């Protein structure tokens, strides 16, 4: 990646977004997966236990499967951001350059996917440990 030396353009924002859109948003993707997983767990358990729409045993099994899917998604996001961080050339030296920013967004996204994965595992524990609606 080279450092652009052209004068700034009027549609600079849109260009940057197409260039780095993925990166800036990507730092929130893993936490969003966590949040979606959390809302699903809470909502579906309420439907099972309070509205009584479906049996709790099947619900638990289904939600554990959703947890696994969420972990896979977070793992994939984490891997991609790890690559973005780790493959940036000479990442420590050039904080003020395009490469530095690219690596930073990768690193932040990578760390966030770790924390999101931990969050998903934590939230899955009650599904594994508690058997019924009481």
């Amino acid at each position, binding site marked *: 990646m080279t450092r652009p*030396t*052209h*004068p*700034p*353009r*009027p*549609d*600079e*924002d*849109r260009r*940057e*977004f197409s260039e*780095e859109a993925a990166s*800036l948003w990507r*730092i*929130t993707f893993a*936490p*969003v997966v*966590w*949040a979606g997983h*959390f809302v699903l*767990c*809470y909502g579906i*358990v*309420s*439907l099972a*236990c*309070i*509205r009584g729409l479906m049996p*709790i045993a099947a619900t*638990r099994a289904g939600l554990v499967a959703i947890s696994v899917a969420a972990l896979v998604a977070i793992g994939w996001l984490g891997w991609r951001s790890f690559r973005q961080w780790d493959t940036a050339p000479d990442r420590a030296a050039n*904080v*003020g*350059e*395009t490469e*530095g*920013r690219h690596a*930073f*967004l990768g*690193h*932040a996204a990578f*760390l*966030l996917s770790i*924390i*999101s994965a*931990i*969050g998903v595992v*934590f*939230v899955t*524990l*009650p*599904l594994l*440990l*508690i058997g019924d*609606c*009481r």
Partner: protein
Amino acid sequence: MTDRANDAIPEPAGPYPPTEAMLSEPVDPDVAEAQARRLRKAWETPKGFRYITAVNNTEVGRWYASTALVFMLLAGIMALLIRLQLAVPENDLISADRFNQLFTMHGSAMMFLFAVPMFEAISILLLPAFLGARDLPFPRLSAYGYWCFLIGGIFVLGSILFDAAPRAGWFMYPPLATEDEGPGSDIWLLGLSFIEVASIAAAVELIVGALKCRPPGMRVNVMPLYAWYVLVVGGMILFAFPPLIAGDFLFELQRSFDWPFFDPDRGGDPMLWQHLFWIFGHPEVYIIFLPSIAVAAMIVPTVARRPIVGYSWIVLSAVGTGFLSFGLWVHHMFTTGLPSISLGFFSAASEAVVIPTGIQLFAFLVTLLAGKARMTLPMLWVAGALAIFTMGGLTGVMLALAPFNFQAHDSYFVVAHLHYTLFGGMIFPIIGGIYYFFPFIQKKMLSERLGRGAFWLIFTGFNVTFLPMHLAGLWGMPRRIFVYPTGYGWDLPNLISSCGAFVIAAGFAVFVFDVFRPKRNQPQIPRNPWDGGTLEWSHDVPEENWGVRSIPYVTTRYPLWQQPKLVERMDAGRFYLPDAEEQTRETLVTSVIDARPTHITRVTGPAWITIVAAIFTGGAFILPTFHWYAPAIASGVLAIAAIIYWLWTATARPPARPAKHAGLGLTLPTYASGPDSVGWWAVWITMLGDATAFASLVFGFFFYWTVQPDFPPDGALHANAGLLALAVAGLGAGWAATLGARKLNRAARRGAAMAALAAGIAVSAIGIAAMLGAVWALEPATHVYPAILWALAVWFVAHSGVGIIMQGYCLAGILFRKVTPDYDADLWNVSLYWHFLILTVVVTGAVMGLAPGVL
């Protein structure tokens, strides 16, 4: 039809980034002097009684911070009264009713009138300086927010003098709060809703400031950590406050018109309030905590004399905490009988949030260990904060375990826990921040000796007061009791607590004296007294109002340490925008990620209109507490008129010249519309908050359906399907007309654009009438099902009405050539509003029309 490219708005031209050769070229001192004179004139603060019309971030920030501090002291006095009453058993100093008012107001004022506004105040004051910006993008919005806050705060706090204060606790649980006679609950609801609106305004302002007003070159990975925290906290405000506003809306409908949202006899459910309150309430504590940590993140590197260790780790923890804190709310509701699996989710998430919080604190410790830390006065307060917050965090981990919580719930153990987190996570870092930033804010130093004295008094007093409360709580003392019998072992801990409270008060007295004592005789302070590395320490001593003399090109995290000659060149006017040729206020707008300059934007100056708008907005919220609905409506109409006048006269006017020299050979456009402009971002962010509030109402609908076997009840009257479809179609046509008008106007077909807008107004009005017709036959006071349909309809109608006003505004804009084919920012912003509106319309239609058949 695609939008025609806009030829009237020129492209930025000239070299960027600047080379070292360009930067080292000297500026002619005579030119520089003339420039400085023009700038000074443009940014002059009004004098005499006109001073209150000022909108400069430094003035508004100072007022905001002082007002929040005064409210805090008043809430503190209430705490002292509480402690006096509880000093000995069976005391009869204060009546039960008075006591209830005191603790309710103490808690509410501390949270809503001090902690959150203090974040806004400090950010308004400091964020532009951290970013080397002239001001925030919407100074009048900050001023409007401040005046709303002041009026609302005085109203809410003043009620205690008339023995009419709210008295159901700071979370206003129904049925206690809904059944309470007297205006207390209404004062709480309406007064605080008003202040919540001000908070959202500040959040919008600050987010746009951090994203679009950074100096050229300051990429997202270079910006001060404080700016990251502002983004996270601003985002949290947008998702946390709206559920409470939606809750307030339902609550007030019940109080005023007896619509039974929280009344179980008619299908309502008080638990809905608890959910909406705590979806707000828990993130709220992080909204308070994160900015204070952000202040610490600015102090720690200076103290350690080295860059922060683990910049991306801290960003991770801020963002991670922001997300996770939304999965905790039910830990305030562990004893409400939810299924234990559900409790487990929230307990687990509460434990998980400890990880990012811990990372944050460890990054500070590592920085301090890796550098050459000195125990300066600000650092002393930060150290105290870390110690106390850690303790509060540990009891928090305990309380997040449901079985322990069942024991300790609503006991003094909780009171102890919450004060450890709030003092450690808010009071101590903020006071440390005041000591650290005071030379920046007032160009004077605070006293080292008084500061240390205040620290030790507050630190000791704090522990003496609150440590024993853990024991009192574990020994069974409930919170919110106005007397207790002797003989349970509660006497001694309470007496100790009460003594400690007065030691805290003594410490605050010393601190407040130090802040407000006259310092006229103090010699001029050094410019950078702590040897900080971030841009705020390039400030001018004695004070200048222009923010920065010229806006620097920044490529490092600590420019004052890492970019030699930077301050010298800023002062000389070597960098961007060194001049104000037309003597108007301007600042530079840069791109979101890499901060490349995109355009120069006008910044609004002093005005009465913001104050007028705030007064009428206040009337619209305050008069209904006395059930004076007609004056309230009149006041609301006047508020809208004032806001329209303000926007019309001061925002997005076509510029005199399409482009301008920005310095260093760069020529930048002076106008932007759509996603390039700051106004568009502000609308986007505001509407995100609005959409969250709407989502909370829809959540309410499905909540009732989930918890009630017969919702909607058998044989209930539904909304009229035909009229509902007509309403959706009408607004759909209104949306299409607005979008069409934007494209027609861009294609220079002004007449057609105006016709489209006029047609849009007509069809939208038909849509509104149809919606009212669809629910007209329902009786909202009889059951919660018709009530929630009515609530959705009211929301729909109000938002569509605003949409119509906006269409009219654009129509007038085209007619009077405020909006032209080239300068069409208003149309872009209004179209964006309508995108959100149509989403609201479609979802409302689906919920009201389809749900009864499907569910």
